[in-house]
C-alpha cells in the first residue's frame, strides 16, 4: 500500500489552541494537543483500502467497503430535509486520524497514553475501572468505550462483562475477533445503499462499538460509547452494531463532544440494532457536538442513520435522544417491527438555538401482527434556529392490529425561530389504530415572571420550564445521565431570552 508509506504533514495548527476555551456556553470546546497520524485528505479507493489496512481488516471487510464506496459514487446527497448548508467538499476531509500513541493498541487501561486519559477526565468521562469498582464517589456503574477521532482508545469492564458472555468492544476488534457475528448482521438493518450518508459510512467507517448480549442475559451495567472529535478538518464515521439475542436486555448510551472550531466538521454515523425474540434494547443518545457560534460559524454536520429491527416476537427497541448540539442534524432513529407483538419507541428532545438546524424524527415500520409503536417528540427552538420533526408511520398490509401513538410538541422562544412538523402516515391495513397529536406553544413572559418572582434567575427559570416541557422524554433516560442531560438543556438555551 503505497499511500500508507507517505503520511502527509498534519495540519500545522492542530496543536495550537491547547485547552483554549472560547465560548463559555460550550464547555467541551477545548482542543487537545495530541500527536496524530493522518491518512491523506480526500476520498478514493486508495483511502478506503488504507483505512481497512490500518484496521488490520480481513479481505471480506475490504471488499464490503469497496462495494459500498462504488455504490456511494453513484448516489447524490439528499436535499429533501428542511436544512440549508453550503455544499460539502468530500475531498477536503481527512477520513482517518488516530493518536500516534494508539498505533499499537494498548492491551489494558494502564497502557493508554496519559494525555488521552487526561482528555476524557476533562470531559468528565470515567475511564478508571478501579475507581468505579472501588465505589469512588462520582463514578457510576457504566462500562465505556471511548472513541477518539477514528479509533477506540479504551474500553472498560470488558473482562467483567465477558464473564457473562457479553461482548462489548470496538467494532474494529469485533471484525477481527468475531467475524461470523459481524458478517451475519452488519448491513442487515441499514443496507450499504440505504442512503448517501450510510453508503459513505460503509466505505470509510473507522470505529464505534460492537455489542452482543447472549440468550437470556440481562446486561448488568449500562454500556456507553463516548465519541470525541478532536482533529481539525476530520470527519468521524462511527459504526455501531448491537445484537440482543433471545430473552436478553441491554441499555446503551452514547455521548459526544467536539472542539470549538470555525470550520464545519462532518459526522456521519450508522447504528444498527437487532433484537431477537423477547429481547429489549434501550438506546439513549445525549448529542452535544459543537453547535457553532451564535452567528452560525463552525459546528458539526451530523448526518446519522440509526435503525433497529425487532426481529423476534415480543421484542422491543426504544430510542431516546436528547439532541442539543451540532450545526446541522439529520437523523431519524427508526424501528422495523417484524416480530409479532414487537414494540418500537422513540422519545426525542431536540433543542436548537442561534443558527442551528435540526431535521429529526423517526420511522416506525409495522410488519408484524399486533405491533405497537410510540413516538414522543419535543422540539425546542430559540434564536434564529429551525427545528423540524419529520416522521413516518408505515403499516404494511400484513400488519394486523398495529397501533401507533404520536405526540409532537413544539416550544418556541422568541419570534425569529421556526418549528415544523412533517408527519407521514401510510396505513395499508384497515385494522390499524393510529393517533397523532401535535401542539405548539411559547414560553410566556407570565411563566418567566412567575418563576423569577419566586427567586429563580432568568436562566434557571427557562431551564425549569423547558425541562418541564421535555419531562416525558427526559424520564426515559437512564438515571446516571438524566441529571447531566437536564443541565445540558438549560445550558444550550443560555442567552436565548431577554
Amino acid at each position: 500500500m503505497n499511500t500508507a508509506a507517505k503520511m502527509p504533514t498534519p495540519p500545522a495548527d492542530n496543536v495550537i489552541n491547547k485547552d483554549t476555551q472560547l465560548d463559555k456556553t460550550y464547555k467541551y470546546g477545548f482542543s487537545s494537543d495530541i500527536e496524530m497520524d493522518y491518512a491523506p485528505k480526500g476520498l478514493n479507493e486508495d483511502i478506503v483500502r488504507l483505512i481497512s489496512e490500518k484496521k488490520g481488516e480481513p479481505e471480506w471487510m475490504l471488499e464490503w467497503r469497496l462495494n459500498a464506496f462504488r455504490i456511494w459514487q453513484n448516489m447524490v446527497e439528499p436535499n429533501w430535509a428542511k436544512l440549508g448548508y453550503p455544499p460539502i467538499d468530500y475531498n477536503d476531509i481527512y477520513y482517518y486520524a488516530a493518536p500516534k500513541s494508539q498505533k499499537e493498541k494498548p492491551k489494558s487501561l494502564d497502557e493508554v497514553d496519559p494525555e488521552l486519559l487526561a482528555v476524557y477526565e476533562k470531559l468528565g468521562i470515567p475511564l478508571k475501572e478501579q475507581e468505579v469498582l472501588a465505589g469512588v464517589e462520582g463514578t457510576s456503574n457504566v462500562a465505556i468505550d471511548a472513541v477518539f477521532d477514528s479509533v477506540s482508545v479504551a474500553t472498560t469492564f470488558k473482562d467483567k462483562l465477558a464473564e457473562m458472555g457479553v461482548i462489548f468492544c470496538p467494532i474494529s476488534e469485533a471484525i477481527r475477533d468475531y467475524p461470523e457475528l459481524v458478517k451475519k448482521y452488519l448491513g442487515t438493518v441499514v443496507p450499504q445503499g440505504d442512503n448517501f450518508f450510510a453508503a459513505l459510512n460503509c466505505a470509510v467507517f473507522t470505529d464505534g462499538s460492537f455489542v452482543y448480549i447472549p440468550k437470556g442475559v440481562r446486561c448488568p451495567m449500562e454500556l456507553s460509547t463516548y465519541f470525541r472529535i478532536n482533529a481539525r478538518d476530520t470527519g468521524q464515521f462511527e459504526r455501531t452494531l448491537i445484537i440482543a439475542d433471545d430473552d436478553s436486555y441491554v441499555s446503551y448510551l452514547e455521548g459526544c463532544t467536539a472542539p470549538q472550531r470555525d470550520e464545519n466538521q462532518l459526522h456521519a454515523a450508522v447504528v444498527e440494532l437487532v433484537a431477537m425474540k423477547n429481547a429489549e434494547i434501550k438506546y439513549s443518545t445525549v448529542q452535544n457536538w459543537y453547535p457553532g457560534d451564535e452567528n452560525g460559524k463552525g459546528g458539526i454536520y451530523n448526518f446519522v442513520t440509526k435503525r433497529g429491527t425487532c426481529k423476534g416476537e415480543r421484542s422491543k427497541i426504544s430510542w431516546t435522544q436528547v439532541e442539543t448540539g451540532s450545526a446541522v442534524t439529520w437523523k431519524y432513529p427508526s424501528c422495523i417491527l417484524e416480530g409479532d407483538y414487537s414494540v418500537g419507541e422513540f422519545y426525542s428532545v431536540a433543542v436548537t438555538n442561534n443558527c442551528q438546524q435540526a431535521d429529526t424524527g423517526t420511522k416506525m415500520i409495522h410488519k408484524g401482527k399486533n405491533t405497537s409503536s410510540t413516538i414522543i417528540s419535543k422540539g425546542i427552538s430559540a434564536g434564529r434556529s429551525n427545528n423540524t420533526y419529520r416522521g413516518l408511520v408505515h403499516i404494511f398490509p400484513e400488519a394486523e392490529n398495529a397501533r401507533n401513538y404520536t405526540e409532537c410538541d413544539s416550544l418556541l422562544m422568541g419570534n425569529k425561530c421556526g418549528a415544523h412538523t412533517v408527519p407521514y402516515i401510510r396505513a395499508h391495513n384497515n385494522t390499524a389504530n393510529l393517533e397523532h397529536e401535535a401542539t405548539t406553544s411559547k414560553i410566556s413572559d407570565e411563566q418567566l415572571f412567575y418563576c423569577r418572582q419566586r427567586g429563580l434567575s432568568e436562566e434557571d427559570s427557562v431551564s425549569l420550564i423547558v425541562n418541564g416541557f421535555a419531562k416525558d422524554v427526559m424520564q426515559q433516560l437512564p438515571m446516571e445521565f438524566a441529571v447531566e442531560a437536564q443541565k445540558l438543556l438549560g445550558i444550550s438555551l443560555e442567552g436565548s431570552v431577554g
Partner: protein
Amino acid sequence: MTELLNIENLHARVEEKEILKGLSLKVNAGEVHAIMGPNGSGKSTLASVLAGKPGYEITEGSVNFQGEDLLEFEAEERAQKGIFLGFQYPVEIPGVNSMYFLRTALNAQRKARGEEELDGFDFMDFIQDKLELLDMNTEFLKRPVNVGFSGGEKKRHETLQMCALNPTLALLDETDSGLDIDALQIVSRGVNAMRGEGKAIVLITHYQRLLDYIEPDFVHVLKDGQIIKSGDKTLATELEKEGYSGLTNETTAA
C-alpha cells in the same frame, strides 16, 4: 416602628398609558395594609411594579425597601430580598411538579442569602406543618404547578408558597377572588400565620369580605393611579356601603 417600604410619588406606565400617577404609601414592619379600589384603578399594576415585572416604565418617583432603592433590582433579586407576590392568576408550568418548583425556589433564595440548601428529605420535613396549616397534603405537591388546579387550589398553592418562602413583605393580589367561604378561611389562616414582627402584608382586594378574616391596620383607597383616601378598618365597611363613586381625592397617603 421600623419602616419597610416607602413609595413616594410613583408614576408608572405600560407602553403609552400612564397607570400610576403619583402614588405614595408607607408600610412599617408588623403592619397589614389593605388596598381597595375599583377596576382599573391601578391595584394590580402597583403589585407588579413592586415585584419587578418587566414591561412597566417608571417615569417618576421612588420606592425604598429596607433602605435600598427597590427599583434598581431585578425581579428575582427582589424575591431574594424578601418580597413575595401572591398572583391573582397564577400561571401553569406543565411538567414541573409543585414540590420541585417550591424547593428550587426556596433553595434559590436560601443560596442568595448564603444559607444552606435543603435536600428532598429536609424539604419534606420543612413543608409538612405548612401543608397542615392549609389543609393540604403531600399528594398535592406531586401535581404540576397550577395545571388543572381549581380557583381555590391555586390560591391555596400561592399561600403555601408564601408560608414556605417566609417573605418580609407579602403582596397579595386579589387573593380572595374566586374563593368560597371555606377556602377563604383556610387562605386567611395562612396569611394570619404570616403576620408578625418585622414583616408586613399588603392585601389588594376588591371586596371587604376578606377583611372579615384578615384584619388590616390600614385601609387605602386607590383610584385613578393615586391613593385618594386612607383610614383604619372602618373605611372598608364604609366603602362597602357607599361604594367608590362618592370618593374624591381628599387626603394624601398616610
